[in-house]
């Protein structure tokens, strides 16, 4: 069909366009053909499907799903994660410009997050995090002004965990629809008066992201909430802005999310998994109530985020990039520094492997692969023969922050973490049979890291206890296998990760300090401490402060085989920004790089027992995409 289209194209026949569009529409699995057809049609060319048209308006580095389109569809607000600035993409010419100027992450940890453009297109309301003050603000700034106009602060939080995010403007531009998140993790749908910052709560929830959308006439708020009987599903409701009613609009045994209003307020568009894949649906509404059955608009669009609707009915949505996870080896010299460039550790299960772990004798190497969502495969390689095999696992493995299994000293069994609801369970898994034995369980779902002592007798883990108001009440816990009760080794801090030294005597702990929580002796940042595994002493800081915005802290600790150095990772919050592996002497002294850096997040750094080889995992993502769906109303009209 592509060749036929090319023939028509050479003849200048308009039939070519129709054929290219058919390729895009009917042969989505043939990526090369689709790519050529798209190129022939030209950038931004509409892809017509059954009554609707779709076009990609932005892809590549910098795509971010936290903003909204301007009413005329020309601009899209977003956060520039290279610097943390609020920015606007001009979709008419493909350029972006920043509306704020943080000076970059090196100069400031401030950043913008959720943003929404006003109905007249002149202003943008956005959330702004102030790193030094550890507070959140809601600000308003002119959209078109790049001359450094000062933003107007409408709201300033009490602390770092109290914040207001804008989701819409009233038609007259005088009020903002916001979600206010309170320190106790309550969420409120509320209206905020722009002139005064006064907030009127309309409905409160437990911790929730209701993704509310204000109807064009400002009378109704559509939002999503967990289904009462099955919280993993979500339903859509319509709340009267005056608080007089709250009505279910979409209730199915599926995930129904991201309501968006049609320009005339007669329909809601939303994302739904009711057919088994993520699809766009619409339901007619009248006077704040559903007025008919929901209809499919476009099937199989992927796990998109709906960003908003223009006044002409163009729906903007963001498609996330796919994630790649790989494991790398790097040779080390006698000083423990990199002697070679990192190379892929395994050719199998590329882009889905993580959580590497050396056996205690160094002859085996285990890792997890999660090629399909929700499935985790346990793989083992014999380092001498290169033979690889998979071990069947009968329990629901939890791939916690991409952490892998831990070897017992017999080199035949592994400690694995599993999850059943909020329960976290530690099993000993026999690698020859796949049989498991439950060793310990905890109902604390905030468990963030774990490790096994070299003698295989003790499990160490940390929990964050962050369900309440902050993370500062975490604990480092020691559980002696076979005992009744775990023992608390350290507490009342925000613990991120733990790692046991190869000699079993010390525990490295990565923690964060929150200036706002009264830790005046520890300014805001990340710290590494060591403490005796016996619990005989309190943690002793050996390194800090790393940047607060390090996005790669979980599962980033390791040790040198001689137990003299702790390995750690630094990086940026940006998704694909480079990470660097460092080491810091336990006895005291400056941290130094070991010569390994990757253009990705680094996890699970681990040195072979012989000290000659480093293994680690990386994680990065493809660029996301911004798409526009048009003419959905025409399709609905024709069908009705």
């Amino acid at each position: 069909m592509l060749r036929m289209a090319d023939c028509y194209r050479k003849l200048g026949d308009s039939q070519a366009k129709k054929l290219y569009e058919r390729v895009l529409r009917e042969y989505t699995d043939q990526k090369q053909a689709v790519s050529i057809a798209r190129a022939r049609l030209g950038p931004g060319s509409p892809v017509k499907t059954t009554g609707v048209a779709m076009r990609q308006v932005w892809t590549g580095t910098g795509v971010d799903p936290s903003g909204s389109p301007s009413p005329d569809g020309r601009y899209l607000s977003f956060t520039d994660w290279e610097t943390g600035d609020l920015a606007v993409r001009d979709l008419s010419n493909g350029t972006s410009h920043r509306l704020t100027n943080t000076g970059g992450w090196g100069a400031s940890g401030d950043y913008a997050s959720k943003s929404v453009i006003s109905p007249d297109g002149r202003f943008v309301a956005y959330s702004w995090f102030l790193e030094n003050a550890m507070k959140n603000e809601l600000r308003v700034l002119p959209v078109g002004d790049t001359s450094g106009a000062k933003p107007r602060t409408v709201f300033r939080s009490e602390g770092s965990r109290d914040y207001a995010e804008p989701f819409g403007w009233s038609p007259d531009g005088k009020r903002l629809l916001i979600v206010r998140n309170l320190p106790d993790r309550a969420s409120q749908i509320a209206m905020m008066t722009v002139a005064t910052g006064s907030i009127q709560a309309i409905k409160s929830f437990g911790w929730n992201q209701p993704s509310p959308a204000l109807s064009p006439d400002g009378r109704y708020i559509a939002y999503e909430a967990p289904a009462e009987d099955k919280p993993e599903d979500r339903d859509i409701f319509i709340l009267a802005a005056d608080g007089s009613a709250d009505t279910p609009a979409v209730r199915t045994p599926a995930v129904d999310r991201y309501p968006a209003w049609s320009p005339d307020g007669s329909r809601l568009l939303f994302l739904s998994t009711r057919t088994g894949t993520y699809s766009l649906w619409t339901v007619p509404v009248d006077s704040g109530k559903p007025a008919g059955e929901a209809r499919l608009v476009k099937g199989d669009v992927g796990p998109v985020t709906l960003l908003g609707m223009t006044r002409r009915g163009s729906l903007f949505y963001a498609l996330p990039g796919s994630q790649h996870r790989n494991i790398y080896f790097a040779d080390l010299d006698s000083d423990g520094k990199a002697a070679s460039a990192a190379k892929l550790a395994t050719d199998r299960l590329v882009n889905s492997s993580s959580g590497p772990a050396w056996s205690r004798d160094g002859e085996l190497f285990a890792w997890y692969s999660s090629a399909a969502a929700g499935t985790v495969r346990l793989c083992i390689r014999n380092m001498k023969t290169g033979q690889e095999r998979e071990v069947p696992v009968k329990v629901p493995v939890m791939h916690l922050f991409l952490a892998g299994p831990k070897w017992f000293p017999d080199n035949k069994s592994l400690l694995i973490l599993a999850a059943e609801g909020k329960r976290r369970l530690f099993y000993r898994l026999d690698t020859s049979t796949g049989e498991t034995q439950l060793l310990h369980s905890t109902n604390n779902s905030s468990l963030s890291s774990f490790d096994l002592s070299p003698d295989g007798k003790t499990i160490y883990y940390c929990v964050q206890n962050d369900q309440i108001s902050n993370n500062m009440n975490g604990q480092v816990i020691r559980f002696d296998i076979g005992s009744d009760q775990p023992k608390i080794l350290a507490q009342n801090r925000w613990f991120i990760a733990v790692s046991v030294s190869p000699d079993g005597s010390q525990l490295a702990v990565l923690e964060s300090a929150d200036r706002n929580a009264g830790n005046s002796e520890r300014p805001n940042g990340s710290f590494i401490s060591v403490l005796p595994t016996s619990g005989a002493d309190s943690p002793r800081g050996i390194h800090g402060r790393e940047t607060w915005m390090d996005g790669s802290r979980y599962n980033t600790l390791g040790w040198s085989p001689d137990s003299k150095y702790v390995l750690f990772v630094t990086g940026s919050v940006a998704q694909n920004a480079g990470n660097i592996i460092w080491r810091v002497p336990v006895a005291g002294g400056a941290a130094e790089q070991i010569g390994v850096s990757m253009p990705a997040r680094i996890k699970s750094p681990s040195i072979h027992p012989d000290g000659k080889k480093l293994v680690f995992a990386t994680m990065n993502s493809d660029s996301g995409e911004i798409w526009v769906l048009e003419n959905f109303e025409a399709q609905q009209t024709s069908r009705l």
Partner: protein
Amino acid sequence: MIAHLLLAAAAVAVPLGLDLYVPAPPSNPLTPESIELGRQLFMDRRLSRDASISCASCHDPARAFSDSRAIATGVFGRVGRRNSPALINRGYGRLFFWDGRAATLEEQVLKPIEDPNEMDLSLAEASARLQLKPEAIAHALASFIRSLLSGNSRFDRYMDGNRSALSPDELLGLRSLPRQGQLHCVPFGSQLHDDSLHNTGVAWNGQTFSDGGRYEVTKRPEDTGRFKTPTLRDVSRTAPYMHDGSLATLADVVDYYTAAGIATAIWTPRFAHCTFRSGRNLRWCRS
């Protein structure tokens, strides 16, 4: 600060700090007429067997619709088992009674009428006395309770952006609650409670639980000693405190939690680490 019975055309007037949306079932929409009928029934002693008490006898409007006695006293001087809870803002609730045994206000309001230790009147007799069907009695009383809204406190004004609404001491108390208190039952949401059930050791007498709490509803051992968190709104008016009225003053309550209560076998582990800054918390509670 109670701002009740201020009626708007479509609903009650909602004071600052509360959700504008006051839930009501479709079968019992909130109307001025149903609220007024409920108010009259709330004061009506005919709803008790000996016509000696009304709902208001144990839910005093001057005390945020709670009771100054530790344990509720019913007809013929019969003493119940638990403290009469405050009724303010219960329209937002999802669980009713200390043990959460009622899921709706309509269900809840009829129980005390029938309870032998409270009003001890069958619904049939109540219906005959008032010439109203039990459902109509339930709807009216539930509507009245939905109209009992308390907000616009200095705390609410502070949360609305008036940073001078609280004194420095009160502010320290406010900040120390979630930071040092670490209690999931002391939140800052509109209602100042989590509408959930917790075992904080109040019913533990050192050897056993004097009141099974939620266990008496579910018969699940893990529910033993669990009671619903009461609201902190108007808390200075609702003494004595706890499900059994065992703590007479706010200072007693803060002292209780400062000492982390009494260790129980199935206690929320997080609770064991709670500490309060007594004076500060006390001042905030009174704001």
